[in-house]
């Protein structure tokens, strides 16, 4: 698991609060220049894990290495963190606020001013620079907070639910920036329980549930491991065929068609043949790979 290009390495870390174990024997490696998805339901231990990485709390046991070094407060300057708990100083002007957070990361003087202007421009918030943050909308505040996480050009960027509450245009804007940062060699840890977002943006994932890691790997590997022979259908008629348990093990009806999970040993060809024989009108017949969403649901529920 220890890899030279790994930006973050967690080695068997455990953290408890009294009786409650929040993170249990977690090991993982996050590689430089990749987007790492830390996924899991609410209360799985994601935020606690992140807090240990950014050195807010220390693990009870196990070790954490950042950029090959034991974590120290000095290394905090190389991390950008957008916590799930969002907050800004209400009565402080946006520009002053961003400057303050830049200073907390040791970005000073003219350089700080320059970066504040550049990022406000980039996120289309320039005209809000001298407004108090209490005058801004929720979406704007979220973008301001995103800036606080990236203003010091961190080598490791940790985003906890960065897109929740944003409109699609702004989601695309932030996604674009995240992918740019990735292209410039930064490491990104991305925590969410929105699987659709994770699926589009992550290279590697770690799925946590009930304080433990239950799945890890690149999105490709994970999906390959979950190939379930599912077919997406939109059709009229052919219902008896779908009820045939030797062909189809499970049917899920959506508003826009049906998803049929093939039974053991059954092939898509056999299903198509039977449907045609039953004179069903087929508008869509498509092999689908499992979505992260399905994998998530399956792993999390079986884990219970």
């Amino acid at each position, binding site marked *: 698991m220890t890899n030279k290009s790994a930006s973050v390495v967690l080695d068997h870390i455990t953290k408890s*609060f*009294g009786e409650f174990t929040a993170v249990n024997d977690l090991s993982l490696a996050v590689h430089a220049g990749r987007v790492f998805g830390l996924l899991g339901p609410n209360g799985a231990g994601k935020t606690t894990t992140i*807090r240990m990485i*950014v*050195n*807010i*709390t*220390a693990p009870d046991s196990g070790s954490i290495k950042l950029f090959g070094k034991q974590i120290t*407060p000095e290394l*905090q*300057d190389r*991390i950008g*963190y957008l*916590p799930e*708990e*969002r*907050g*800004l*100083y*209400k*009565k*402080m002007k946006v520009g*002053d606020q961003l400057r*303050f*957070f830049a*200073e*907390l*990361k*040791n970005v*000073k003087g003219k350089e700080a001013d320059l970066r504040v202007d550049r990022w406000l421009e980039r996120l289309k918030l320039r005209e809000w620079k001298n407004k108090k943050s209490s005058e801004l909308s929720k979406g704007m505040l979220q973008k301001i*907070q995103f800036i*606080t996480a990236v203003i010091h050009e961190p080598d490791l960027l940790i985003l906890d639910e960065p897109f929740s509450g944003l409109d699609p245009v702004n989601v695309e804007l932030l996604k674009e920036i995240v992918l740019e940062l990735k292209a410039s060699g930064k490491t990104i840890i991305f925590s969410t329980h929105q699987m659709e977002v994770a699926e589009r943006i992550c290279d590697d994932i770690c799925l946590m549930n009930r304080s433990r890691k239950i799945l890890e790997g690149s999105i490709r590997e994970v999906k390959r491991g979950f190939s379930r022979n599912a077919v997406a259908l939109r059709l009229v008629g052919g219902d008896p065929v779908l009820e045939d348990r030797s062909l189809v093990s499970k049917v899920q009806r959506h508003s826009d068609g049906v998803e049929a999970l093939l039974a053991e040993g059954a092939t898509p060809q056999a299903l198509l043949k039977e449907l045609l024989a039953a004179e069903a009108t087929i508008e869509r017949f498509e092999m689908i790979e499992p979505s992260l969403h399905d994998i998530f649901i399956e792993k999390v529920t079986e884990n219970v």
Partner: protein
Amino acid sequence: MNKLVAIIKREYLQRVRTKFFVIMTVLGPLMLLVFTIVPGLLFSLKAGGATRIAVLDQTDGTKLYDSIHSSLLQRERDDESNKPPNIAEASNPNSKDRIENARKSITSSFRVEQVNPNGRALEEIKRELNARIGRDELDGYLVIPPDILTNSESKTSYYGRNVGDVITRGQIENRLNSAVRRQRLIQQGVKDEDVDALSKSVNVTTYPINEKGEEGAEDSGAGFAMVFIIAFLIYITVLLYGQVVLGAIIEEKETRIAEILFSSVRPFQIMLGKLIGVSLMALTQLLIWGLAFLLLALLAVPAMAAQGFMDINLPHLPPFFFVYFFLFFVLGYFIYATIYVLVGSMVTTAQEGGQMAMPVVFLLVAALYLAFPVIRAPNSSFAFWVSMVPFFSPITMMVRIISQTPPFWQIALSLVLGFVTVVLLLWLASRIYRIGMLMYGKRATIPEVVRWVRQS
């Protein structure tokens, strides 16, 4: 270090720039003036004009009436000497002026008339006077017994509508006393013009002697007054700025910024930065007030001197005293401010914090009360221990320094203990703050806090 500076800067600028700060800075001294002067004025103010008093002098030839009449109408020396030592008088150059004015308004507030018995019986006269009081033509009357000048046990009576006005009652009693005393002396053959000189009260001037046996300059009691000033200053400062400190500590919890801060700065730096930032704001405000006061004093002193108030003496205190004054004031402020930091670290909302901060004020008041036994026995072991306890030392040690300056090592030890306490409290607060941050919306119980402190 840079980060600490950033926090201090933000805390300071954000607070100094607010309208609230500007308004408080301007209105603060005005409010202080209002709170110190108005109650005094109200107390001495008697609405409804002069008190109308009738005097029934039953002595032979009504010898007393003239004396009582002039005594009631004149300014009375007894009033002054009977007054308890006034702290404000030694401390506040304006107070003399104020008391003077207040007294003038009081002394002129009697209208005296003589009741002529015309051979009537006492009962009849009383009935008539009672009727007049009932008709609101009179406020009260004095019945002077015939044997008052010869019998020290004889009883004088005052009848009045409003006997609840203790101030007026006290004045009447005082003035009657001096009138009777004067008349008795005259009757014993003392010459009228000698009475004043003979009945003058004794003035004791106090001189301190230090441990080397040297005699000091005349002690005007100003030192004692200074203790109360320092106690009052700490008290006011803590009341004014303690809540600000509390609010500053809680701000990040209420706005949920704490997590971002923690990912960049050590909690101890946050605590220290906030404390220093708010303190600098307090210092700015106090400096502005102080300068305004100084300016006023510089303008007022010559003006008052021109009006004849030459005896405004600033307390004669050795310079080292002012160094200690400053040090213990700063220490006292920081000890109590860090308690507010500690409270702030434990609670989640300012409202909760306000409730939990209540005992802080009690602690301060306790320190003030402890000053009394200490001033009576400044070198007792009780005084020693009390002046070593950090929460009390700013006041109790100051009392000892003023009354009988203790050895230097004791003062130094008290200061060191105090500042160590400040650092310890800050450290404790930062630890509680960091762990408490992980649980929003719930106040930490004491056992939890103890566990947190042991943890991590």
